């Protein structure tokens, strides 16, 4: 087995929604350079798990460890080391594509200098629309804006919830490439998806939810 460092670990993790148990006794670890794909039907708790892991919500049982240390919800270390890419795009209608990306990067604690931001927009194919208010972008283009943020992210762990939603084939390829490069740099990713994203990874595992 590899000797890569463990980034995130869960021990006997459990979650409830109201009085219904979503999952329990979930223990796994994510190491550097590893891709963990979470699969399962709607309502099985995939999103709940991902939100819990980034600190948005407390488990009903068990614990989460970040680099070997137990962390609570909204833990500082977790907030510095993890990027969460959820259903909501966090794109502001009133701001232009370039402003959205700059504010998004700054919020994630990433440097947002102009040349880099423009290059990222060029890569996701939004350079021509960079000055357009986001209200006039399509759903897929909004997701691409999120992708541009990922391109520049250097948090070690990425939690991606249905990252392929609303993306066209070219967008999916770009997503796969971005995640693959992140893994090569020694990052790790936890991806919940229904599609096959075709991310090339040296070490990949699947987590199946019933």
């Amino acid at each position, binding site marked *: 087995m590899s000797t890569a460092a463990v980034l995130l670990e869960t021990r006997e993790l459990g979650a409830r929604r109201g009085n219904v148990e979503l999952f329990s006794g979930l223990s796994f670890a994510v190491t550097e350079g590893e891709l963990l794909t979470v699969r399962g039907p709607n309502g099985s708790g995939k999103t709940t798990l991902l939100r819990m892991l980034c600190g*948005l919500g407390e488990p009903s049982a068990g614990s989460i460890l970040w680099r070997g240390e137990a962390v609570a*919800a909204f833990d500082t270390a977790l907030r510095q080391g993890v990027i*969460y890419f*959820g259903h909501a795009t966090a794109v*502001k209608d*009133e701001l232009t594509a370039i402003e959205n990306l700059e504010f998004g990067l700054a919020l*994630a*604690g990433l440097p947002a200098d102009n040349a880099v931001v423009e290059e990222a927009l060029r890569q996701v194919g939004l350079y021509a629309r960079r000055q357009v208010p986001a209200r006039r972008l399509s759903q897929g283009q909004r997701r691409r804006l999120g992708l541009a943020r990922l391109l520049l992210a*250097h948090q070690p762990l990425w939690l991606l919830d249905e990252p392929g939603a609303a993306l066209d084939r070219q967008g999916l390829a770009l997503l796969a490439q971005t995640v693959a490069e992140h893994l090569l740099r020694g990052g790790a990713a936890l991806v919940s998806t229904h599609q096959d994203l075709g991310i090339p990874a040296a070490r990949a595992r699947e987590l199946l939810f019933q």
Partner: protein
Amino acid sequence: MTEREFFGPGEAISWALRRDLRLALRSRGELGVALLFFLIVVSLFPLSVNPDPKLLRTIAPGIAWVSALLATLLALGRLFNNDYADGTLEQMLLSPLPLPGIVGGKVLAHWISTGLPLVLVSPLVAVQFGLGGGELGVLMVSLLLGTPILSMLGAIGAALTLGLRAAPVLLALLVLPLYVPVLIFGAGAVEAHASGLGAGGHLSLLAAGTLLAGLATPWATCTALRIAYE
């Protein structure tokens, strides 16, 4: 693959301030509504009581303050709701930037875009109600010192009612009782000045209140926001 270790509150405040002010500028229409609401409510009072100049001058500060309270309340919905709906708020909670700083910056931006305009249009109230120059000055200073407290306390209520169906009504029920001291000192300052007692005491208490609220409320608001997600 290293993460930056430290982010100061100044960075967070300036991020939220720049962003929310830019958003406010882009949606000026919405801001105008709160301001217009303030002016309409103020104008309703002389029509509902009696246009006797002496009476109007007596009730003017109270009316200006009650209207400011209501206008702030009306605008509070915007503080977190849009960010909640489009997912930006969860990114703020997950951001390595300190949350109290982000919240502080947001509240400051909210005050600049909704509270400060009220201060600036208050001379219109003075004209409508026949207030003298000195009284107007005290009214403006009291609004300037007091409306930040309204925004800061209101932020706690807005965070507590985040995403609830009954949020607007509930927000009023939660926040208005807490506004009582601000109302008393704010309106009282003008009265004290008019009766020759001097408004210094009232105004310094308002200033102290703003300072205290500025120190204490961001943390309460952050706790309330996190509770809404947990």
